[in-house]
Each structure stands twice: as C-alpha cells, then as structure tokens.
C-alpha cells in the first residue's frame, strides 16, 4: 500500500516526459496493480524490450510495493499515430 496512481504518473512523467500517458489502477483499490499506456519521444528508435525497460526503470523506486504492472503500450510518437494513409486512387485534388 502506498503507491498511488499519481505516484506512478509522476514517476513516468519525470523520467520519460511522455506526450501521452494513461495509468489505470487495476488492483481494485489496493494500489498494487497498474496498467500503463505511454507514448514518449524518448522511445524513438528503441526496441520494445528497451522501451519496457525504461518504464520499469522509471518505476523501480515504487516496484517494491507494486505487485503487478502491465505495460499495454510503450510507443514512440511516430508509432502511436502512423502516417496518414495515402489518398485513395482516383481522389484527385482540384
């Protein structure tokens, strides 16, 4: 007990300065289980494993009290919003 959603958010924000961050408490109130979605420029060019490691490192001070963290997304901005699909054939600009 003792790790709040805000603690988790603050830890990730200070380490990764994310452009998108969603922390969901999935513990049912005891504060020991979280789901995390994070998009950060610091992830650019990093493998998934590395990106997860960065999130884990950011949380390491709190990990002793958290039972489970599930990283749902750890994406670089380019991956989070893929380039817009090319205009369909036949759609001409006038």
């Amino acid at each position: 007990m003792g790790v709040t959603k805000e603690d988790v958010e603050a830890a990730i924000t200070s380490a990764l300065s994310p452009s998108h961050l969603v922390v969901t408490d999935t513990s049912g109130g005891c504060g020991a289980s979280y789901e995390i979605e994070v998009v950060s420029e610091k992830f650019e060019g990093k493998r998934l494993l590395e990106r997860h490691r960065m999130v884990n490192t950011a949380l390491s001070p709190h990990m002793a009290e958290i039972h489970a963290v599930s990283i749902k997304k750890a994406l670089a901005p380019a991956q989070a919003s893929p380039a817009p699909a090319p205009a369909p054939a036949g759609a001409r600009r006038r």
Partner: protein
Amino acid sequence: MIHPSMASAAASLRLRLALPEVSAPSPAALRFPLRCRRRVSRPLAITAFKKLSEASSVPIPQEPTQPLVDEDALPPKPGVYGVYDPAGELQFVGISRNVRASVEGHRRKVPADLCASVKVAVADEETPDRTVLNNAWKSWMEEHIAATGKAPPGNVAGNYTWVGAPQRPPDLRLTPGRHVQLTVPLEQLINRLVKENKVVAFIKGSRSAPQCGFSQRVVGILEAQGVDFVTVDVLDEEHNHGLRETLKTYSNWPTFPQIFVGGELVGGCDIISSMAEKGELAALFQK
C-alpha cells in the same frame, strides 16, 4: 508401442509422421532380401508388408479375460496393424515392435465397441529399421484413404483414444538440489541453459500448473504457437535456489515470466502477448 500420428488433412495425403520414441530402438542394419542386394537404390519395404486389403482379419475377443488368438495369427513381432470396430470400420492404424502386445494394450484401454478385429502384417525381418515400419504405416494409411476418402478416426490429430496425449516436457532444473555446493556461478548456469535451448520460459510455477496469471498466459501463448520450449520454475527453491534475484540481474528485467529466444531476452508477458496479437511470434521462432 509406437504410434504414428496423423495430420488432419486426410485428402491431401500429407502424412505427417511425428513418431514418438520407438520402444526398442535398434540401429540394426537393413538386411535386404537376396534379390535386392544388387540394387541398393530400390525403395525399402515395398515387398516387405502385405497390403491392408490383402491382410486377413483376426477377431479380438470382447472379454478381457479371454485370451487373444494364437501367436500365428497375431505374432509378437514388429509390423503394422489396423483395428476395426464391430461394423467393420477401420478405427486405427498403428505400427509396433510387438504387434501382439500393442493390440493387447488397445484392447484394455480402448472402448470395446471400437475393437472387434484386427488386420496385421508383420515384417520379414526381426528388427526392421524404423523407416521400414513408417513406410508400411504410410502405405496402409494411403491405401485406406484412397479407398474411403478419410483417415481412420483414431489417427486424426488430437484423437487420444488410441495413443496417449503427448507428454509435456518436465520443467528444467538449474541445480540438483540445495544441498549441492555449486562449482560454477548461477549466472553461468543460466547462460548455458538459455543458449542450449532455443526457447526458454522462466515462469512462476510449473509448466502444467503455472502459479501466476502472467506465467500461465505465456505458457498458453507458446503452446498455441506450437513451438518447442522449455520452462524453468523460478519458485522452485529446492532446485533453482536464488534464481529469481540472479536472473533479474542477468537479464536486467524486473519481473517474471521472462522469455528467452536464442539466448536473448525477448520480454515478459506484455511483450509476448502483444507480439502474439500482431502475429510477430512466428517470425521470431523461425530465426
């Protein structure tokens, strides 16, 4: 007893011979019949076995206490056999180092309404090569499928009436036990284990009974992929004492399960799950 298993696609005749261990492995040299000796390229086992349609039917007594027919009709020898139900439908084709013993085994384990009679073709040689038996099985299967358009039900993949379900490999242990003083550091044992096994899952609990939801999910995903993998139970304090802390440092990863492929950490449950969803796992295991 040895059992060929049969891929589902009967019509395509792609008979996948995933044969488990032969009970009496014999590297015996093939003894060709004299007339074949000069033509080594001649395919094996063409003449060695009777065709399914040529083999005569031998009844199997329904009462388990009643003895099987005599050994002339059902010899304790290597060969191929097909078991028929009372309606005369072929239920299962198997090969064995001892056909009589295998039929006896089926009679005890398989419901009686599936075992009414058996056709047998024994090998000419006393210790035929495994390929010879496999080919005999294959040609009986092909003959039956050509005649009826389907495989015997007992040979369809996933039917465990005749052959037991495949055994899951046991969990690997890093050490013989806590009482044994290690002569090499645990890191080295981990290192060797992940390099010697293509896919290794360090999980909480055993493979057949994972003790954590994440571990269970990973085992499920890996089994669904059909990949060969080994598991190590990080909670086994007797045989893997100290593994949890050492592995966290070794892999620089704070949680379990941990999945290694080709000696490298791929990730934990989240990563494996998301790779499975995106269909990236197959490519990973092909490397």
